[in-house]
């Protein structure tokens, strides 16, 4: 079930667009922000609120890689392992995540705290290695720094 707030927010979004289809992507973001992922029930609910057929909601949401269709941890770590970051040591950062949190790429920690996705270049080659935690950006990572940063996310 979506929270009352989410339903309200989706309603506001709907009013910004001429047709329901256009409001679908921003509405899905609202849900993902709240639940961390898009469950089938949530897709159905969004469809009902916007009056967009649920199959279409599913089609659209599965088209975009930013939408997640499986539950993830409370915080999503998106760590870059592309060339610049690799040279600057992203490999050892991956090891730290594994040792310290038991976190593997595409995995989630047992306590549901973190999920990890390995990224291609996220545009921070100059200050590599870099990662995103949820929507926060962190660069110039070192083994020590990454642990300190992650400790702030509970």
């Amino acid at each position, binding site marked *: 079930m979506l929270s009352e707030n989410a339903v309200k927010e989706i309603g506001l979004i709907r009013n910004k667009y001429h047709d329901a289809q256009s409001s679908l992507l921003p509405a899905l973001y609202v849900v993902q922000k709240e639940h961390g992922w898009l469950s089938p029930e949530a897709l159905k609910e969004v469809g009902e609120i916007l009056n967009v*057929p649920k199959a279409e909601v*599913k089609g659209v949401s599965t088209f975009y890689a930013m939408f997640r269709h499986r539950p993830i941890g409370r915080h999503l770590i998106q760590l870059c392992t592309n060339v610049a970051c690799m040279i600057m040591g992203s490999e050892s950062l991956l090891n730290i995540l594994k040792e310290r949190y038991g976190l593997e790429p595409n995995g989630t920690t047992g306590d549901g705290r973190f999920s990890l996705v390995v990224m291609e270049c996220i545009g921070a080659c100059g200050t590599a290695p870099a990662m995103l935690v949820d929507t926060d950006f962190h660069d110039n990572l070192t083994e020590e720094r990454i642990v300190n940063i992650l400790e702030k996310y509970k």
Partner: protein
Amino acid sequence: MITVTINRKKIELEKPVTILKAAGMAGIEIPTLCNHEMLEAYGGCRLCLVEIEKMPRLQTSCTQYVTDGMVVWTETERVVEARKAMLEFLLINHALDCPYCDKAGECDLQDMVAKYGPTTGRFAEGKRRHPESFEDPIIVRNMERCISCTRCVRMCSKVQGAYAISMVNRSNKTFVEPFSGGKYDCEYCGNCLTVCPVGAIMSRMHRHAYRPWLIEKEVDTVCSFCGVGCSMVLQVRGNSIVRAVPKKGAGSNKGLLCNRGRFGYDYVGSSGRLDSPMIKRDGKFQRASWSEAFTFIADRLKKIKDENGGSSIAGIASGRCTNEDGYVFQKFMRAVLGSNNIDSVASFGYAQAQRFFEGIFGQGVTANSMRGIPNSDGVFVVGGDPTAVNPVLGLQIRAASGKGVPVVAAGYMPGLMIFATSRLIPRPFTETALLSALVTELRDIKGISGKGPFDILINDIPSVSLGEAEEVCGIPSEDMRSAVDALSRMTNPSIVIGRDILQQPEGQACLLLLAALISLLNSRIYLLSELPNEQGLVDMGCLPDMLPGGRHLSVESFRRRYEEFFGVDIPSNPGMGIMEMIEAAHDKRIKALHVMGEDLVYNMPDSAYVKAALSKLDFLVVHDIFMTETAQLADVVIPSLSWAEKEGSYTNLERKMQLVRKAVEGKGMEEWRAVSEISKLLGFDMDYKSSVDIMTEIANVSPLHKDIAYADMAGGECMWPYKGEPLRHGMSLEGIEMPDKGSLLKKPEKDRIYIGIDKPLFHFENLSRNSAALSSIAPEPYMNVGKALADSLSLAGGDSVSVSTGTGSLKLSVQVDPDVPENSIMVPDNFGDKGAYTIMKWKMNSAIKAPVADATGVTIKKIKRAAEEVAV
């Protein structure tokens, strides 16, 4: 004028069309995969690439329009190479399991690759894997074969309007799925099957049971699951139907079918079919020979006629039978038995509505082409859900809505809700309030033009304000106001009317109000028709007061014509209607009943009463294809032929006459043939060799069907008024009672639950129980209930309830649908002893001479919660 040159051929065009179309006109073939004549162009597969001079890149000919002076090449080296590459791309993710695939032999991809493509691919990275999906009872999905052309999705969304499937994921991981990922839970029209170019979506019904090249016979016929009469082809192997498919571009359906037409044919081959005449002796049925059975019937009928007169015998015809069956049957009743007691369930609504409107506007007012609906500038729907009763007609309304035509939906019609611009759902039986308010408003806006007799009547209709109507029917005034605004702007709208409008105490007032609307809006009328030949029953005179050709029995000159033709006198008094017959049987006023293909027990309200009435008859004959509950009560049962086993004609709701053709051999006998055999034994010679002879006779005697022949129908365009002489003068306003304001504004009783008949998309009368396919989609009876009532009874979807009336009770599962009218439940009448009619009583509405099911006195008790059901 546009001149375009394709492969050196000059083509002149009035209007710009796509290169693909222009090439087609010039007989130049361009291969396509994602393009389909029933769908809008998509430009996805890129197989139709062509080279256009002065354009650097190859273009998709299915989307590119021609311009004047354009020079196009469709077979250059570049094009051929590109085409090959496209096919190679498609094969990257295609299973290539042709030897095992049912589509092989009629697969577009297979044909294309054989003709244009490389035989091997170079892609070595492996294909996507998808196990075949068998979650669904009748459709099987194999997404390893899908080429992502999106034809199915476009069909399902844009044409069918079901929006059940979509393309999921992206790029090489794309495939098609319904929302659930498993079962479709859709409208099961199967139109996605028609357009899928490969074997990715297929019917399970003939899975691995045939190969296209093993089809022995293809028979052009029409569907017999509703009054639309869609053109279809039955494909036959051995003596069984392997598949029913639409005929490209033919009929009013133009390639579309609904679930019933496409999948419901399997009842024809059902093991439960009757295969021999049966005579009941000492309460037990015994097999008998044809001649034994006919002699038995003739002797009994003769005795009853001699002792009690012809009027003690009655006949009930069926809208499943052909015109020929109907004609011969009414002739038998009138000329041989001397009785005008002939009627059918068409008199529950269709026949009444038609006669009412014809009386006012002249014969043939309901003869309108379905294809006109999307071309009208507005649609008003009332009295039933067209998308369930007449599914393919329903699609025309959805198509209208898709074109931006306003659709005003008055009443409960789930299949149109998302397509309607105005949704007006009155409380039970308060349509009069809604309609009279609409008439009042529109009368003011449009003004009454002429001084014709009907205009005067319209003027006399009591004025009802929106506020007064709101009070009674519960629809907010502003909703009615916006509907009035929409209606007042329409200049040539379509009005679609279902039989529910008559199934209420103020049925006649509803008809009058609708006639006023029709006149005020200058609209075309479409009557929903549940049975394939309901119109044929009317036209053939299977009515107590009408002769074939829509001629009134009471008019002496008409009667004379038939008397001279038949060579005997016809009683001049109208006979009994269907409900009167049942009552008369109950009171022993009629002694014998001859039933031609109708399961009266379940297709009429109050099954127990009907059963009791039939049991009191001295003699009951039933022709049917199954041992129905009604046949069980008979003294003699004559096995009939199903629609796929005989020749004849149907007249659809557009009043188009169409041919029904024999595809397979059956073990029964055509009703007309059986009836003429009996007739001969009664000393009246009916010497028909085939249905052609009967149609010839009809063409001779019925002024409406003058000179008509099967050849006229074979082309599929045998439209009203044929070559006949319809009675155009009409305007008989006699007997129309002007309702008073009080009766228009009757409120439903407080705290009373009403029961309404739901017409499910997946069933047809009580016949479809014999179709394993249709039963697998919708196996269980249910009860639809609105949110408020559900809450007040603390019911949730999936709960089991017991619904009782004074007459009986039913165990049903709950479906909550917010659109169900206040304080009412909707229950289907299709599940035999679990159907709504088994617990409903009826009353005779004498004004319209139609029975009205008594919708009151319902109590609902919860038996089981949905969750408990799961736990069990």
